C-alpha cells in the first residue's frame, strides 16, 4: 500500500513542474500587462509604465521570473494579488469552499444517478429503457452548459418559481462562515430554515454542472457492465444460486467499478472547467468567477497561483481515485 502510494506521489513531481510552467507561461502569453489594465483608458507614459513594471519585478528576463516564482511556490508563497493586494492563497481558500461544495454536489448527483442508469441500461440491453437512457445521455453530453443552465432557470425559477435564480443563500439569513460549506454552516447556525434555503440555491447549479459527468458516467457504467455481465464469474455467481440483485450489484458491479472509478476521477477536471461557466450563470461566488476576473485584469500572481491550486486539487482527487482503484481491484495492491 505505501509503496503504491509512494509511486503515485513520485509521478506527481514532474506534473507539478509542468503545471507551474504552463500557469506561468499562459498568462504572460496574453497581450497586455497588469500595469496597462490598472491604468485603464487614461493610459500611462512609457517611462512610468517601465518604472511600474520594474517595481513589480516584471522587467527581469523570463527565466529569472520563473525561477523566483517556483522558488516562492516551493516555500509556500504564491504571491500577492496585484489588484486586491491580498495573498493569493488567502483569496483562493476563501472562495474555494463554494466551488468545492458545488462540485461535490454535482459529482454526487452524477454518480447517484449515472451509475444506476448505466446498470439498468446494461441489464435491459437493447430495450426501450436502454435506448431511452442512452439517448438522454447523448443529449446531456451535447448540451452546452450555459444554455442548459438558462433553460433550467427559465423553467424552475421563472415559470414554476421553485428555486432562486442566483447566489448561495438568501439575504434574509445571516450565517457565519465556519467551514465555508454553506450546507454545513447553515446547519451549525441557529438561523431557522437557512439550510433549506441553501439547499434550494444549490440544486440548479449542481444539476447543470453535473449533467455532462452524469452522461459520461452512465455511458461508461453501461459499457463496463455489459462487458462484465458476460464474464465467466458472473455465470459462477448465478450457479451459486445468488439472487439477480446480488449477482449484479455485488459480483458484476464491483468489477465494472474499476473502469467507472477512473472515469469519475477524470470528470473532476471537466467539472472544474464547467464550474467557471456555471458559477458565472448562477452568480456563484467561487473560484471560477475569481479566476476569470483575474485573467481579465492580468493579475499574474492570482492567475498563476489559482491555476496551480486548481491543478493541485485535481491531482489530489485523482490520487484518491487511484487509491480507491487499488482498494476495489485487488490485483493492484496484492
Amino acid at each position, binding site marked *: 500500500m505505501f509503496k503504491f502510494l509512494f509511486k503515485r506521489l513520485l509521478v506527481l513531481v514532474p506534473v507539478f513542474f509542468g503545471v507551474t510552467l504552463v500557469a506561468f507561461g499562459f498568462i504572460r502569453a496574453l497581450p497586455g500587462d497588469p500595469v496597462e489594465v490598472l491604468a485603464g483608458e487614461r493610459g500611462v507614459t512609457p517611462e512610468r509604465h517601465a518604472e511600474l513594471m520594474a517595481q513589480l519585478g516584471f522587467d527581469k528576463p523570463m527565466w529569472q521570473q520563473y525561477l523566483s516564482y517556483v522558488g516562492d511556490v516551493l516555500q509556500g508563497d504564491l504571491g500577492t494579488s496585484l489588484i486586491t493586494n491580498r495573498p493569493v492563497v488567502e483569496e483562493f481558500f476563501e472562495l474555494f469552499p463554494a466551488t468545492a461544495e458545488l462540485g461535490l454536489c454535482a459529482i454526487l448527483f452524477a454518480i447517484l444517478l449515472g451509475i444506476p442508469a448505466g446498470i439498468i441500461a446494461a441489464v435491459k440491453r437493447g430495450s426501450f429503457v436502454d435506448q431511452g437512457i442512452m439517448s438522454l445521455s447523448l443529449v446531456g453530453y451535447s448540451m452546452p452548459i450555459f444554455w442548459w443552465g438558462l433553460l433550467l432557470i427559465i423553467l424552475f425559477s421563472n415559470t414554476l418559481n421553485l428555486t432562486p435564480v442566483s447566489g448561495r443563500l438568501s439575504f434574509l439569513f445571516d450565517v457565519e462562515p465556519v467551514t465555508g460549506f454553506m450546507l454545513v454552516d447553515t446547519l451549525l447556525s441557529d438561523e431557522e430554515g437557512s439550510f433549506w434555503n441553501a439547499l434550494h440555491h444549490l440544486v440548479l447549479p449542481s444539476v447543470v454542472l453535473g449533467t455532462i459527468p452524469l452522461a459520461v458516467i452512465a455511458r461508461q457504467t453501461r459499457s463496463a457492465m455489459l462487458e462484465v455481465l458476460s*464474464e*465467466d*464469474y458472473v*455465470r*459462477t*455467481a*448465478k*450457479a*451459486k*444460486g*445468488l*439472487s439477480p440483485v446480488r449477482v449484479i450489484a455485488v*459480483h458484476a458491479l*464491483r*468489477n465494472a467499478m*474499476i473502469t467507472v472509478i477512473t472515469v469519475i476521477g477524470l470528470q473532476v477536471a471537466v467539472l472544474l472547467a464547467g464550474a467557471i461557466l456555471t458559477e458565472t450563470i448562477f452568480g456563484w461566488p467561487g473560484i471560477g468567477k475569481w479566476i476569470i476576473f483575474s485573467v481579465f485584469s492580468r493579475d499574474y500572481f492570482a492567475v498563476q497561483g489559482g491555476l496551480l491550486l486548481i491543478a493541485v486539487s485535481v491531482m489530489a482527487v485523482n490520487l484518491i481515485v487511484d487509491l480507491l482503484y487499488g482498494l*476495489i*481491484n*485487488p*490485483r493492484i495492491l*496484492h
Partner: protein
Amino acid sequence: MALLDICNLSVEFATAHGALKAVDGVDLKLDEGEIVAIVGESGSGKSVAMLALMGLLPWTAKVTADRMLFDGQDLLTMSAKQRRKIIGKDISMIFQEPMTSLNPCFSVGHQISEVLAQHFGGSRRSHKARTIELLQQVGIPAAETRLKAYPHQLSGGMCQRVMIAMMIACQPKLLIADEPTTALDVTIQAQILELLVELQQANGMALVLITHDMAVVAETADRVVVQYAGQQVEQRAVKDLFENPRHPYTQALLRALPEHSQGELLNAIPGVVPGQLDRPVGCLFNPRCEHVQEHCRQTPPTRNEDILCHYPLPLAGQKP
C-alpha cells in the same frame, strides 16, 4: 425414483439467421451416486444441455422438455426463486476455465462462504470454519492462510480446487463438471479428476462429467452419453460402449484415440460437426459416416435402444 429425469430436452437459440438448435431431444436419467460421462466433439451441445438444466442460459435461449425432474421436483414449472434454492445447493456445476470463473475482486474465502450464507443463512463470517474445512477437503495446503488469497494469486489448478470447494460446499446431490480439466496442465488434470471422484464417493453425490477425454471416461464413469450436433446418439454402460460401440460415431470416436492409431497418423473423423447453416438432410452424421447408406441421406433416424441410427453396428458375436 431417479435423482434426475430429463426427457426430450431441446434448446434453441434465436439468432440473426433464424433458430439454432443447440440441443435436440436429449434424455438423461441419473440415479443417486452414479457417474455419467457426456462425450462428443466441440459444438455437440454437451455444455448447453447442462447449462439449461442449471437455468444458466441467456434469455435468447428457448428451453423445452417433456420432463425435467430433479429429486421429484419439476424444474420446468418452478419459479426462478424456487429454482435458485436448488441451484448451488442440490445441483451445482464446475466450469471449464477456473481462472476466469472465480470473481477477481473477492477473496477465495469470501466466495466460498458466500454460497454457504446464501443457502444456510447466517453471515459469511459464521461459516469460516466450514470454509476452511472445505479448502482442506479439496487439498489446498495452509487453508487458513488461503482464505484471504485472491484468484490471481493462485494457479489454475488451485483455482479449480477452490471452484470445487465452492460447489460442494452445500453437499449437492448432483455435481456437473463441465470439462473441469481442459484448461489445466496434464499433471494437474489427473489430480483434479482424482479429487472429483474421491469427493463423489465420500459424499455419495451423482456426477455428470462433460469431457473430450475418452481415457477419463473409461476410468471414472459408470455410463456414457455420446452427443453429436446436439443429438444424443448413443447411451450405454461404459464397459459395453468401449468393447462394442454400436453407433458409427462412437466407433469413430474410439478409433480416433491415440492408442488405436496405425503408424504415425491418428484416425481422424473427416469433416466437422454441422453448424446452423449446413445441417444435412437425413441423419446428421451421414456426411462423415463410413457406413452411410442411401436411406441415411434421406430420413432422420429415430432412437432405438438408446441408439440413434438406422443401421446400428452389430453386437459382438451377432451377424449384421
